[in-house]
C-alpha cells in the first residue's frame, strides 16, 4: 500500500534556504564566468520554453 504523502513546509523552506546559501557561497568562491554560465543556461532555457 502506498504511503500517504506528507509535505513538511518548514523542512522544505529550510532545505531551500540551505541551497540558497550554498549557491551564494559558490558564486563568492568561483569566477563570474563559472557561475554565470550555469545561471545563463537555466534562465535561457526557462525563457525559451515560456
Amino acid at each position, binding site marked *: 500500500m502506498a504511503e500517504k504523502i506528507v509535505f513538511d513546509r518548514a523542512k522544505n523552506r529550510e532545505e531551500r*534556504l540551505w541551497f*540558497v546559501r550554498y549557491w*551564494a557561497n559558490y558564486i563568492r568562491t568561483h*569566477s563570474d564566468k563559472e557561475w554565470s554560465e550555469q545561471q545563463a543556461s537555466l*534562465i535561457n532555457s526557462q*525563457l*525559451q520554453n515560456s
Partner: protein
Amino acid sequence: MEFVGENRIKTDKVINDLDKFVLKFIRILEKHAQYVIVSGYVSIFFGRSRATEDVDVIVKRMGKKPFSELYSGLVNEGFWCLNAEKPNDVFEYLEHNAVRFAEKGKVIPNMEFKFAKAESDFESLKNPMAAETSIGLLMLGNIELQIAFKRAVLCSDKDMEDAVHLEEIFKGRLNNYKIRDYEEWLKK
C-alpha cells in the same frame, strides 16, 4: 564581481537572455529619464538561480511630451505596451498604475514600469548601485534597501530567499544598521 567604487561594481558575468532584454530596454529608457531597477531582478542579476516574468523599474516622473518621445523610442526598437496602445493612454494609466513593456510578439519577460511615488521609490532613485557589465551599465536598487523591502514588505518565501541570497553575496559589505533602519521605516 569587483567593487570599483562605494556604490559601483564591475562584473564579467555571462550575459543571459534576461539581462539582454533588460539592457536593451534600459539603453532606450536612460536617454529620457532617471531610473532604477528594483526587486527580484536585482537578486537575479547577482546570481540567484531563478528567472522572472517581470522586471521592476522605477522611473522619475516625466511630462507627457518627454514620455511620448520615450514611448516612440521603445516602439521603434521593437517594444510594445501590454496595457494600452496610444502614448497618451499609457501616460494616463501611469498616473496610478504600473505599465508593462515586452518585445513585440511576446508577453514575457516584461518590464514593469512605474513612476516614483512612494518614499521608498525616491530613496531607491537617490541611492542606486551602478553595475558595469560587458554590454552596458545598469542602475540597481541599493542592496540594503532591497533586503529590507523583501523582508519587511514583500515577505513571500521567494522574497525571503532573495534577501538571504543578497546577504550572502554582499557579506562583509552590508551596513546591517541601515538594513534594520530601512525595515523599521518601511513598516511604519
